[in-house]
């Protein structure tokens, strides 16, 4: 007989029951932010992460950094899912030595100017949403502490983003962090004894729960409802795009789509709706970036499911809370290229915008025409790569800035994944897609060459002064698979 079955060994190994006192206090996870930061001993070389679901109304990132800065902590990496106007004063934390490395999807406003001018010694790593998820899940980026701001949590850390005073909706980006970070801290202005159901963040991942006065500035988190553009140019582009989608026979039963959340890309949904009603088509799902307009399509019965990685207005938040097939998904499920079931691979069509696009159909959504960081990689390259058809919509010129040009200043999305460009001055198809060209020709949709558009734009705005770059590399743009697709240089 093996030792295993020796009852005395077993008793020795496992120990005999010594009694239990039911009234003894269970472990309390609720602490102050200051306590948590001290207890976690965040030091040199560590990485802390945040999400940006509270958008311009985010308060948590600054709260944490301010405390760390006061403590004299130095050389940490911050790893937010993106950076917004709420974070534009972070240059002060770079200068104090607190932040020595940044990984993000987007960077804007003053912080973008600071980084572009060379304030940070190490280059910023720019990743798409899918790329960020990949980096975390593969272990390439290790998160020591994930700070997760939520709208509502219970005392154990079961939390969601759609209840409470200042909801943010889906917590999609943070859901990856919470699974892989060493320590997880949930922070909210609404902490209840009663269990939070439904939850997006389960308490078994959570180490600490913190109550703060205010988790976000309500007016800056999101608007009540996203307004559809009334700009005639944008509407023209949107209508043309919808016509093209129809011509390419994408609109058929159970088709799937994703659109951007503003300008022409969102307005496309308005024209698509008419066509769907006319043809009596129901889409299987819409993915995004969800706004009230897409929610309306769902509630009208035109779209069966909504897969939501980020809510853009309160209508979307309300729907997430109440509509059972409006489903919160995490960033990995959304777009991680190493995740075989990632949803972008199921997209029939995606409609995106661009800051710049060139002859190769390469797209820049990261730097402005002055070379300064002012955008976000987001889900752009992910959806472009995963979708069957990728359409970029944009006016030919914006004011005096050409969108369509000879060569983009920085590449985020490679042209081989971009199929069609729709502008107010004409539509161009990537020569790699002979199938699309043939079909559009057959349906008598007018097409021009991308070169024609480039020349047209240049004729209108004339050639700008070249940008004066410095020697320093201030940003590294990673493609979603982790390889480097471009470098962002310092701007003098």
């Amino acid at each position, binding site marked *: 007989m093996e030792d295993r079955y020796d009852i005395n060994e077993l008793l020795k190994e496992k120990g005999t029951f010594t009694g239990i006192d039911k009234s003894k206090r269970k472990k309390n996870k609720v602490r102050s932010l200051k306590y948590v930061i001290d207890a976690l001993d965040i030091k040199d070389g560590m990485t802390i992460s945040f999400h940006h679901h509270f958008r311009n109304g985010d308060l948590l990132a600054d709260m944490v950094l301010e405390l760390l800065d006061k403590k004299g902590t130095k050389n940490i990496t911050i790893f937010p899912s993106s950076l917004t106007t709420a974070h534009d004063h972070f240059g002060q934390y770079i200068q104090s030595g607190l932040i020595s490395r940044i990984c993000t999807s987007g960077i804007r406003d003053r912080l973008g100017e600071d980084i572009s001018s060379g304030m940070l010694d190490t280059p910023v790593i720019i990743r798409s949403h899918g790329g960020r998820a990949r980096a975390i899940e593969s272990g390439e980026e290790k998160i020591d502490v994930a700070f997760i701001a939520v709208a509502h949590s219970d005392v154990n850390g079961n939390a969601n983003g759609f209840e409470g005073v200042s909801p943010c909706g889906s917590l999609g980006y943070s859901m990856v962090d919470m699974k892989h970070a060493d320590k997880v801290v949930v922070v909210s202005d609404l902490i209840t004894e009663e269990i939070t159901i439904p939850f997006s963040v389960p308490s078994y991942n959570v180490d600490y729960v913190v109550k703060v006065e205010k988790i976000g500035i309500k007016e800056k988190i999101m608007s009540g409802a996203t307004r559809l553009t009334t700009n005639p140019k944008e509407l023209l582009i949107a209508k043309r795009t919808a016509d093209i989608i129809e011509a390419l026979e994408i609109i058929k039963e159970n088709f799937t789509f994703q659109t951007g959340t503003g300008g022409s890309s969102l307005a496309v949904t308005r024209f698509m709706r008419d066509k769907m009603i006319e043809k009596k088509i129901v889409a299987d799902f819409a993915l995004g970036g969800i706004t009230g307009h897409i929610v309306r399509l769902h509630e009208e019965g035109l779209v069966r499911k909504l897969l939501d990685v980020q809510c853009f207005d309160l209508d979307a938040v309300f729907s997430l809370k109440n509509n059972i097939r409006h489903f919160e998904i995490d960033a990995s499920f959304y777009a991680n290229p190493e995740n075989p079931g990632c949803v972008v691979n199921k997209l029939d069509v995606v409609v995106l915008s661009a800051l710049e696009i060139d002859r190769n159909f390469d797209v820049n959504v990261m730097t402005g*025409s*002055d070379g300064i960081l002012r955008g976000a990689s987001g889900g752009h390259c992910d959806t472009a790569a995963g979708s069957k058809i990728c359409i970029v919509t944009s006016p030919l010129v914006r*004011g*005096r*800035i050409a969108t369509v040009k000879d060569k983009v200043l920085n590449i985020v999305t490679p042209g081989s994944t971009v199929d069609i460009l729709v502008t107010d001055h004409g539509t161009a198809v990537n020569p790699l897609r002979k199938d699309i060209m043939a079909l559009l020709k057959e349906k008598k949709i007018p097409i021009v060459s991308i070169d024609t558009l480039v020349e047209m734009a240049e004729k209108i705005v*004339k050639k700008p*002064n070249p*940008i004066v770059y410095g020697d320093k590399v201030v940003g590294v743009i990673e493609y979603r698979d982790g390889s480097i697709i471009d470098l962002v240089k310092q701007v003098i």
Partner: protein
Amino acid sequence: MKLNKRAIAGTMTSSDVMIEVIPWGKTSEINIKSDVEKQYGDQILDLINSILRENDVDNVCINVVDKGALDFTISARLKTALFRAAK
């Protein structure tokens, strides 16, 4: 062109330009605030200078607030301001 008083033309709507013309007794000065300063600042200055030359205007202060206007817009607004100043 002889200028008699100060005048203003244009707006600060996107793609437009607001131009003020002030005749004064010293050498001409052109102040430009532009959304596209880096990319087109020089070209805008050249354009304004050439229009002033064409119209034989000097000893003037030109204040420009540009919101990404194209050349023909800048030209039209400047000429309007000059004509108003000459009235």
